[in-house]
């Protein structure tokens, strides 16, 4: 039994490690996998387990590898790895059932940490299998006579427990997040100082939280353009962040900043901070820059909080130098783009008219928004995008637009940051995720910096809320959050399968992963009506109590005694005889009872002898009654009952 549990645990940990393979350093991953395999060997070959000293040395060595290979700033990964390491070592040591039970209980925590990194339907199904295996292992360590019984009991219990747990998930009011704990992932995707979208085939998106914004008075109205960085120089291919840092701002007119919010930044080592429009902060470790952006003075990788005051960008005249700087382009390259810009420019007199032309161009020339653009390599990437592929995400549109504006002499710059944010549960805060990363253009119309975002016409829904909430892009967005079966889409049946799986996964994401406080509130109000929504907790308690009661009732059913045909007939006969007080008062065997009836009630004698013969034949001689004999027995019993009656 304990071998079964130990092997199952080895497989589970191998599975967990595979699910976390992309997060863990390769060396540590392979070492831990080796330990799992070793344990598998120990469990099945019955070899002696390593001594405590050896395990301790191993633990120390692994810890050293851990601290060398894992970035100490990634505190969650560090914690998860240490947990896995400790559990696997404990498993290696565990020889008694009791120790293995402890490892199993620990493993229920380990499998949850997988969900910090992987939440797809497939990973969830896999973790679900682990869950089943763990309960079977628990049962098998608990003195159950057969593994089959352990499996049956586990499946039975889980088949009742899972719906109840789902019910709790839906109806138990959700708790708000505790802000203090660090985020799970280190920045994987997100902002970059260099915007060069053209060679990207598929924009890998991360659902990691970047920051939360808590508004002091009322929630600002969307769209939320969170400015982070300005990309002011085009090098022929990419838009780059200005090499000369912006000046620190002096003389801030604080009362003019009407909006205010608290920004809770997740762990990040980046210097840039986020603001709506023109922003300033009173925090001492924040640098207020002249271009209305904010920077962290000491960008260490820890979570961070700052007060933000913001307002729309004000009119601002450009100096001669600035005008030149913001219209500067390389001499060569992308001739088609330049031509197109010039053609659009001839139709319009001023900057704003040009912008309108440009919007129309994108709108009517068949441009689409996608996270899986056709990769463009070589030179003149903008030309190819404009004239051939015409599919791209924000980076494509921002790059091309800013280039076109500059080529007709409109000062322009690319801004990167985040667009949107999820408003959770009607609260006063927004959550902004890595997949909300966005790039757009700011152009100077002669009076002030204006925003230009081609996404607004190509994918209008993108402006409202978070990317994850835009229905139109949802499927595509999901496909980019994980591997998917896209590579195999050329096979028709596989493609069909992929689409079906994606549909399922879409539903999964929308209804399970995305089930947040707001959705819960709406659902509860829809189901229970707004005045009863607050009693959902009581509903859950009642439902669980009821289910458990039914389980108890069902399990209290007594073992059924299956009477054979002849036994049923006999019991009928004896019941009748007992009613007429003809039955022997002593406890006799059926045959002896028949004898007794035959001797004490002479008119029954012939019947009793025949009944006795048939009963003996079926019960003791293992010869089943024929159809005829069954009929005969029944008739005999009926006749006898008549005589008795």
């Amino acid at each position: 039994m304990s071998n079964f549990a130990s092997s199952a645990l080895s497989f589970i940990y191998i599975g967990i490690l595979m699910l976390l393979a992309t997060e863990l350093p390769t060396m540590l991953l392979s070492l831990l996998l080796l330990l799992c395999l070793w344990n598998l060997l120990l469990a099945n070959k019955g070899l002696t387990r390593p001594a405590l000293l050896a395990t301790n040395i191993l633990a120390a060595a692994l810890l050293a590898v851990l601290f060398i290979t894992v970035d100490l700033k990634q505190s969650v990964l560090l914690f998860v790895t240490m947990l896995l390491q400790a559990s696997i070592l404990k498993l290696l040591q565990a020889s008694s059932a009791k120790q293995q039970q402890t490892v199993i209980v620990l493993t229920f925590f380990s499998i949850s940490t997988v969900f910090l990194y992987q939440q797809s339907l497939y990973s969830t199904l896999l973790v679900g299998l682990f869950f089943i295996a763990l309960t079977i292992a628990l049962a098998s360590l608990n003195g159950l006579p057969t593994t089959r019984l352990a499996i049956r009991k586990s499946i039975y219990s889980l088949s009742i427990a899972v719906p109840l747990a789902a019910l709790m998930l839906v109806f138990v009011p959700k708790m708000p997040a505790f802000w203090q704990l660090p985020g799970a992932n280190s920045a994987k995707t997100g902002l970059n100082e260099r915007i060069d979208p053209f060679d990207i085939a598929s924009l890998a998106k991360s659902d990691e939280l970047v920051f939360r914004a808590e508004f002091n008075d009322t929630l600002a109205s969307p769209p939320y353009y969170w400015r982070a960085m300005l990309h002011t120089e085009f090098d022929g291919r990419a838009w780059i962040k200005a090499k000369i840092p912006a000046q620190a701002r002096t003389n801030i007119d604080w009362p003019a900043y009407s909006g205010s919010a608290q920004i809770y930044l997740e762990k990040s080592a980046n210097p840039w901070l986020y603001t709506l429009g023109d922003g300033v902060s009173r925090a001492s470790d924040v640098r207020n820059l002249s271009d209305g952006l904010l920077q962290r003075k000491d960008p260490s990788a820890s979570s961070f909080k700052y007060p933000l005051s913001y307002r729309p960008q004000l009119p601002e005249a450009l100096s001669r130098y600035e005008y030149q700087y913001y219209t500067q382009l390389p001499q060569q390259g992308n001739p088609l783009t330049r031509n197109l810009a010039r053609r659009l420019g001839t139709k319009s007199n001023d900057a704003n008219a040009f912008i309108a032309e440009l919007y129309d161009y994108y709108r009517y020339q068949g441009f689409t928004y996608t996270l899986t653009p056709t990769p463009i390599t070589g030179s003149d990437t903008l030309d190819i995008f404009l004239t051939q592929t015409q599919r791209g995400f924000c980076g494509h549109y921002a790059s091309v637009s800013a280039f076109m504006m500059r080529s007709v002499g409109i000062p322009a710059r690319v801004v990167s940051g985040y667009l949107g944010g999820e408003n959770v549960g009607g609260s006063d805060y927004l959550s902004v995720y890595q997949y909300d990363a966005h790039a757009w253009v700011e152009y100077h119309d002669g009076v002030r910096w204006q925003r230009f975002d081609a996404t607004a016409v190509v994918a209008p829904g993108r402006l409202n809320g978070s990317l994850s909430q835009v229905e139109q892009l949802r499927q595509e967005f999901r496909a980019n959050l994980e591997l998917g079966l896209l590579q195999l889409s050329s096979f028709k049946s596989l493609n069909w399968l992929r689409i079906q799986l994606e549909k399922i996964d879409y539903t999964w994401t929308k209804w399970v992963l995305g089930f947040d406080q707001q959705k819960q509130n709406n659902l509860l109000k829809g189901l229970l009506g707004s005045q009863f929504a607050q009693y959902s907790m009581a509903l859950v308690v009642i439902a669980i109590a009821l289910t458990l009661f039914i389980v108890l009732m069902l399990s209290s059913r007594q073992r059924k005694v299956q009477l054979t045909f002849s036994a049923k007939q006999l019991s009928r006969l004896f019941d009748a005889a007992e009613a007429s007080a003809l039955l022997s008062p002593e406890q006799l065997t059926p045959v002896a009872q028949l004898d007794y009836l035959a001797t004490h009630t002479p008119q029954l004698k012939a019947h009793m002898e025949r009944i006795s013969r048939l009963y003996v034949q079926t019960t003791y001689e293992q010869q089943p009654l024929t159809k005829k004999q069954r009929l005969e027995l029944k008739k005999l019993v009926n006749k006898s009952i008549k005589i008795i009656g």
Partner: protein
Amino acid sequence: MVALLHKICAPLHHRLQDWLLRDKHKTATLTLGHSTVYVLPSKLGFGFLLVAGLNFILAANYQNNLVQLSSYLMLVLVLMSLIQSYANIRGLQLQFKEVPSGYANQGRTYRLSVTNQQRNSYAVQFQWRGNTTLVEKVDSTSQDVYINGDKQPRGCYQVPRLKIFSTYPFGLAKVWSYLEANADYYVYPAPQPHNHALNKQALSETPQQSSGALSQSGNDEFDGLKEHKQLADYRRISWKHFAKREQLLVKEFITEADSAYVVDFGQLPGDIENRLSLMAYSIEQAQIQHIPIAVRLPGLTLPSDSSDEHYLKALRTLALYKNRGAIHE
């Protein structure tokens, strides 16, 4: 400090337990049902709940529905375990058989029979005096269960409470009950083999005189051993010494009625426990060979007899002799 706390708490705990249990379990037969079964999460179950709590915190912090689901699932699993472990043990019928008396150098064994006419009970454990026996399956056919207890000093004991428990199916919940049969058992002194002679004495003699040496009482009441059936170990007695004495006289004076082999406390060496062990050995040997013996302890003489009841009574007498806490709880 801890010891002091324990000293205060232990009797309270006992009293509380007695009050809770009342007399429901003071019976030799018991069918487990809702009034006689107690259910709580086991230690492992509490650990499991702790992990469920950690998962809950993790889930709340990362707004992670899947971790939340697993935390709820764990909670429900514990609740299910409570129900199932109770349902499993329900209807279990216990029948106390015996705790056979025996010698102090062996442990006692508790014997009971179990059956469940209503359903199968799995993984039922029986704990008695610190030892546990696991029965994997109890069904409608009655089966005997033996639980070995450790060695105990000689005496008469009331059968200690038997604990019946099960953590079926996952080890997360524990159901338990007790069986307190009203029965006694004896622990006889451990028999210690020896070569000391078993003498024939007049039973009418007062015990004080019998404690003297052989030579002192070597008069007309006394006889050599050679004419009698003797235990094998006592053959090395000094025949010559006895032969020189008035052998025939003895034969004439002693009648079968008032003389017998006496297992005499006073004639054995060592301290009380040692002497009792030597006596226990003699009685054991006598019983094996059906030799009638009398047993003499200071202030107490059992007349010669060779019935099994007599040997039993003799051993019990030894078990209780000068035993301050003769009957232990």
